[in-house]
Each structure stands twice: as structure tokens, then as C-alpha cells.
């Protein structure tokens, strides 16, 4: 009897391990249009209303945690903010005209229109979406949003928040999409330091959601702390970046000369990935060779 139980237990374990490995390899190797992906999208679509309800229901709890977190952070930042405020007041006096114009422009233009002004035809159509889930993984960083192919979302659409670049769409169902954040190691963004700085690749540091790294900047190239990075939006005719030119990514917080001709440039993203509630998915836009099939 006992041996029979052991045999049963072992056979169940082996069956489950084999099922997992088969699923893993089949899902990993099949195309996006494959049957496993279709089933997965179906399950995600069916359960997405439940996710939305859970996300809404748990929002007060998230807000409470954020409030506690921000209270502790605010105490530490208080001194720093006092210094910043004094400097900001001096700068404010010099730049009131510019600020006034800027505010008017901001009021008139949405981010999508701004990107269109940068010279893209047809213009991107921003679709605003709420975040409904988030991956708990240590390495990968993805979020789920409640907009899908029914809203015109496609794979590789850039995703932004009010602060700057958030990531790009990697999976789409009828009603939800998965967004790979710029803090996910599978994501790399070609970036340019502003106003006229060098171009490099922004990549995440695994396990550190707060910082990014700007790679391929030689020791001779000039990058300074506080310099802003925007998406480079390159294209060579056959291949192109998934992101259009000019989306703010973050600012340089530290630069150190490296031993192998390349600098180590640390970047703090403008968008706070943990505080995101809503994002905009830039749908449509110009044809980008090598990005969409």
C-alpha cells in the first residue's frame, strides 16, 4: 500500500515536470500566432475583468502603502528639497518668460502631438490605459495594461507616462497588453544625451529598478551629470528603433571613467516604474522597418 502511494506520488511529480518542460519549450519556440500563445491570450482575456476588479479593489491598500512609503522618503528628502527650492527660486526669476510659454504649450499639446511635431507622419495615436498587473520577478520587469488589439495596440508600440519613456508592448490580446519596462534586461533603448551629446544604449541593471546604465560612451565623449537623455529614434532604412525620436528617458546621475575606454554612466529614469498607475501606448505612427512584421 505504502509502495503504491510512493509510486503514485513519483509518477504525478514526473508527469507535472514533463508537462512543465513541454509547455516551456513549446511556448518558447513557437511563433506568436501559435496555439499555446492563443490559449494563453484567451485565458488572459477571460480573466482580465477579474484582474481589473482586483486591481481597483486593492487600490486603497496600494495607496496606503505608497503614503507610508512617501512619508518616510519625504523626511529624508526634506533637507535636500530646501536647498533645491532656494536654487529653483533663483532660476525661476530668470526664466519666468520661458516657463510661461512652456506652460501654454504644455496645455495645448498632448505628448502624442508633440511627437508628431517632431516630424512623424502619420501621427501616433496615444491610447491611455490603466495598469492591471505587475510581474513579481527579480530580473524581468513587465506590467499588464487594460488596452489591447481592440484599441489599436500592436506589438512594439512605445509606452510612455507623463514623465517619460516606460517601455514597449511585447504581447497583445483583444483587451489587454503586456508591456516590457525599460528596466527589463530584455529591453535596450538607443538614447541621445541632450542638447548635443553622444548617442548610446540605455540598458537596465538587473535587480535595481531605480537605475539604468548608458553604454557605449567612450572616455573621450562628453556626458555630464544632470544631462537629459531622450530616445534617439534611429533608422538605417532596413532596421529602426522601436521608439520615435525625442521621448525623455531620464537624467544622468553619475559618470565614471572606465578602464576599457568606455565610461560608466548611470541614469535615473524620469518615470517612476513602481508608482505608475496609467500609461499611454503610442499606437499607429510611421512604418518602422524591422520593428513590425
Amino acid at each position, binding site marked *: 500500500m505504502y509502495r503504491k502511494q510512493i509510486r503514485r506520488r513519483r509518477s504525478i511529480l514526473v508527469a507535472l515536470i514533463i508537462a512543465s518542460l513541454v509547455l516551456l519549450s513549446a511556448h518558447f519556440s513557437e511563433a506568436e500566432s501559435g496555439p499555446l500563445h492563443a490559449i494563453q491570450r484567451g485565458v488572459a482575456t477571460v480573466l482580465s475583468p477579474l484582474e481589473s476588479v*482586483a486591481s481597483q479593489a486593492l487600490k486603497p491598500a496600494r495607496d496606503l502603502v505608497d503614503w507610508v512609503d512617501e512619508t518616510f522618503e519625504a523626511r529624508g528628502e526634506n533637507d535636500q528639497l530646501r536647498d533645491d527650492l532656494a536654487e529653483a527660486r533663483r532660476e525661476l526669476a530668470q526664466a519666468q518668460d520661458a516657463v510661461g510659454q512652456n506652460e501654454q504649450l504644455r496645455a495645448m499639446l498632448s505628448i502624442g502631438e508633440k511627437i508628431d511635431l517632431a516630424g512623424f507622419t502619420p501621427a501616433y495615436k496615444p491610447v491611455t490605459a490603466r495598469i492591471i498587473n505587475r510581474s513579481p520577478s*527579480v530580473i524581468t520587469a513587465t506590467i499588464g495594461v487594460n488596452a489591447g488589439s481592440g484599441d489599436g495596440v500592436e506589438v512594439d508600440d512605445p509606452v510612455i507616462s507623463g514623465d517619460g519613456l516606460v517601455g514597449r508592448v511585447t504581447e497583445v490580446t483583444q483587451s489587454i497588453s503586456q508591456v516590457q519596462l525599460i528596466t527589463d534586461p530584455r529591453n535596450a533603448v538607443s538614447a541621445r544625451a541632450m542638447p548635443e551629446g553622444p548617442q548610446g544604449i540605455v540598458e537596465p541593471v538587473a535587480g535595481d529598478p531605480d537605475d539604468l546604465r548608458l553604454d557605449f560612451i567612450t572616455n573621450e565623449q562628453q556626458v555630464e551629470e544632470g544631462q537629459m537623455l531622450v530616445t534617439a529614434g534611429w533608422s538605417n532604412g532596413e532596421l529602426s528603433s522601436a521608439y520615435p525620436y525625442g521621448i525623455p528617458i531620464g537624467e544622468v546621475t553619475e559618470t565614471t571613467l572606465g578602464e576599457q575606454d568606455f565610461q560608466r554612466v548611470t541614469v535615473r529614469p524620469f518615470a517612476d516604474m513602481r508608482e505608475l498607475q496609467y500609461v499611454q501606448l503610442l499606437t499607429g505612427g510611421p512604418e518602422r522597418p524591422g520593428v513590425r512584421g
Partner: protein
Amino acid sequence: MIVTWQIGLRLTAIVLVAVLVQISFLSYISILGATPDLLPVVIAVLGLLGGAVTGAVAGFATGLLVDSLLLQTLGVSSLVLLSVGYLAGRYREQFEIESLLAPALLAGALTMLATAGFVGLQLMLGVDATVSLLIVREIVVKGLLGFLMAFPLYPLLRLALRPALVLEEPPTRRRIFRNRRPARRRRVRRASAQGGVA
């Protein structure tokens, strides 16, 4: 554990609630630079309460659900969580659980194992990440958070699944009475055989 359809429903509800709480709430929180991971803890507790088979099956199903909802590669979370459930179940089958510390320690250790396993599988699947001490720190912190979460979760889930737990079936008055009667009869028989009064 005796898994009737009612208990099956309870297990399904537990798994569903745990997955929703994880992806809609806990994944947004950062404590000491790490996100609390409820799922390995819940699966470890289910393994401790239900044994290796229950733990492995619950882990597999939970992993499949998470991977589907997050549109991740199917099978990764299943493989990790079924290992957690099976190991916790095997522990329960080998050792007596006498205090709350043992489940908490086991849940913490298995959370660390699950996180490391997930990282390993992701790296094998081609996620090109620099493995730094930050990841090790996050794995350790997740383990610590798992240890802490197990303290309320173990009694809570034991309460929810109590009707299915063979060893913890509450004694009823009838069973107590039925158990006592033969002993009393034996005493009476022994006393009358010796010629005395019971």
C-alpha cells in the same frame, strides 16, 4: 489531505486569491528593495498541509495561471512552484511540525529557492542580465519576507482547509463516548472476573 470537491473548490479559491493579490497588490510594493512574493509561501503552506502531491499539483496550477495572466513564457512558474509544493510536502511527510517556526523557516527557504530558480530559468531562456549582488540581496530579502508572511498564512490556510486534514479532525462527543465504552466494559468485565465491584 482528503481532497473532496468542496476542498478542491477551497484550494482553487485560495490559489486564485493569492495570484490576484500578488499581481494586483504585492508586486507594486517594495520592501528593502524587494517585492514580496506570496505565491511560493502559499504553495509551501499547501504542501505542508496537504502533502507532496497536493503541493505539486497546486504549484503547477498556480504557475500556469500566473504565466497566463502575465503573458509570460508558459511553464516557467509552474516548474518552480511545483518544486516548492513537492519539497514542502515531502518535508511534512518526513517530519513532525510542532511549532509555527518550522513552516515559516521552510517557507522562507523555499521562497529563496523559488526566486533563485526563476532567475536561473530566465537566464537560461536568454534574458541577458548582469548577475550582480543586487540580485542576491533581493533573493535574500524575498526569503525573509516569505518567512514573515508564513506566520499569519500557515494558521489561516490550516483553518480554511481544516475539514480535509486527517490528523486535525476535531473530536466529536459521539466519538469520545464510543471510544470510552469498550474501555469501561473491559474494566467491568475484569472487575467481575476478579469478584470485585467496578
